[in-house]
């Protein structure tokens, strides 16, 4: 059997004294899209932050393997270079840094860390233009400071643009549907679907089944109180939508 892209084993994590992840087990083989659904406060977003390496969280037990390699000791930048990309639920506004400048810095930093040469300006411009066109992102938006004054839709499209340019092996999408109207949801979903590939996996975190109509998952997991309590195919999302989370929480207790 080939090594899965992501393997999480008995992951426990806490912030300050509060334990939030209480034994997460999750394996995503190459090429698959897995959805994690759960109510507010169940620990879904924490899982995404812990994957990306946010310092506020302390992993107390367990392992995260990316392509078979433990990444827990890695800094966020090293994890990005190793292939993790987190599309933020609330992308951070960075005043004074033009989006274009940021994109170039991120791409070149990853290339440098992998021992590749810097992108030439024409190659960079071409890559951004191509990726941007699919997401309705024009040059004007790229000149603005990163995420500053972007609408909800613009922020999410900019996240997917970064994802397209950085070509990660594991995409973690944290509530990518939040703050999106139907049109924007379609543009973003299309962008995400275009990035589905045999050598890339995705973890899609969401409240609502709606997003999963657009980004159809191979496996759906129900998250409750810091762990996965149920897994199934995409129909599980429909059941959740119909019955609510209570049934599944009950089963977990």
């Amino acid at each position, binding site marked *: 059997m080939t090594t899965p892209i992501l393997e999480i084993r008995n992951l426990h994590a806490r912030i300050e004294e509060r334990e939030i992840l209480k034994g997460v087990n999750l394996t995503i083989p190459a090429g698959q899209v897995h959805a994690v659904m759960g109510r507010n406060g169940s620990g879904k977003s924490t899982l995404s932050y812990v994957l*990306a*390496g*946010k*310092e*506020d969280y302390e992993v107390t037990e367990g392992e995260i393997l990316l392509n078979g390699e433990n990444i827990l000791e890695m*800094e*966020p*930048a090293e*994890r*990005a*270079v190793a292939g993790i*990309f*987190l599309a*933020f639920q609330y*992308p*951070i506004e*960075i*005043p*004074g*840094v033009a989006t274009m*400048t*940021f994109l170039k*810095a*991120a791409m070149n*930093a*990853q290339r440098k*860390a992998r021992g590749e040469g810097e992108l030439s300006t024409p190659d960079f411009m071409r890559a951004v233009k191509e990726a941007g066109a699919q997401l309705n992102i024009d040059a004007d938006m790229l000149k603005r*400071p990163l995420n500053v004054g972007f609408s909800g839709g613009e922020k999410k499209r900019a996240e997917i643009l*970064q994802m397209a340019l*950085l070509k990660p092996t594991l995409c973690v999408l944290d509530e990518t549907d939040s703050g999106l109207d139907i049109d924007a949801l379609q543009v973003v979903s299309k962008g995400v679907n275009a990035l589905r590939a045999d050598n890339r996996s995705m973890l899609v975190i969401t409240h609502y089944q709606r997003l999963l109509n657009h980004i159809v998952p191979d496996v759906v997991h129900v998250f409750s109180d810091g762990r996965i309590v149920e897994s199934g195919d995409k129909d599980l999302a429909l059941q959740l939508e119909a019955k609510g989370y209570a049934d599944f929480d009950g089963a977990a207790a």
Partner: protein
Amino acid sequence: MRQTMPVRLGAAEDTLIAQLKSVGADATAERITVAGLPTRRVESYHYTDLKTLLRSIPPLAQAANEASAPALRVPGAYQLMIANGVIQSASTAPAGVIVGKAAGGVLTTRDDVLVHLNGAFARESLTLTLENSVDPVIQIDRRSEGEAAHVADSLKVFVADGASAVILETFSGSDAAHVGNHATYMVLGKNAVVTHITIDLSPRSASHFASNEYHVGEGAKLRTLVIHAGAGLARTQLFPRYEGAGAHGDITGLNLVVDGQHADITMDASHAVPHTSSQPLFKSVARGRGKAVVQGKLVVARDAQKTDAKFMHQGLMLSDEAEILSKPELEIYADDVVCGHGSTCGKLDEDSMFYLTSRGIPKDQAETMLVRGFIEELVDPIEDEALAEALHGIVDGWLLGK
């Protein structure tokens, strides 16, 4: 009962007194003899105690024999140089610029030791009269050259009604314990538009003092940008006075300090007539045990109704030992005004750092990006591209060099 205690004078004060007497400035010598250099007990020097910080004064400057490399070149700029207080002959001035000299200093007398000292020591002042709008950046390259010297120089600029100009002043020189005391006096005529940038690029061994006095006329717009990025001890004093309806000032400044540096921007602004406005915005970035000070005083005269002024100072601490001190003051005698002040200070935002590093950008590079972003608000309004690029170069040099 009040006792008059004689002030104990230090070596710096003794030298100053002797130097003042040698140029016949007996009144100023007497003041120093009685009061000494200001200590923290003097409100306007509370955070910059000159008696403690200024331990010695080098000999008065002689004409320079050699010049170090220019600290900043802006392509296309018209350059004038003052070296060790002596105005150097200049190339042909652009159309509408009249260059001249006048004897003595330029500042209006006020109760301030740096102003007094400049008035006593500045032998001649460079005068610029701008009769109409001037396209090229005008750069005044002020130097302290040779052995450690006490240098005083002064500049007077008249900007005619409706004229616009960008005036850049740079302060630099040889690596020696110079004490520079610089003055600029600027008058903006009706509807004049001026950008005045002063950048201290002196060596760390030097002490840099500058006092800039502005008279902003009716409908005139002044933008200033002070950058402290050189001397071990730096203080720039800004004295804008809004004298005509519609006068506006974007008074901005930036302290960049590393371990062992002390930089102070002190503004004392006067809204003298009705319907004037100002937006003072200062930023400080401190590393190591660096110390940055911003004092901002807005004085609104009794008659100056409808004044709209807001002072802001934002500090960014890049180490636990850094110190950033902020003192806003409002002195309002009118009753129908909108005035305010704000001050923030903090470290780099952790969420922003996480966001950038989660994209693969290493920590130190992410930090540089965020600091550059923090400062950008001050550089962004500079329209001249070559000048903006030069300013970015200074900021980047500071960020990457230390």
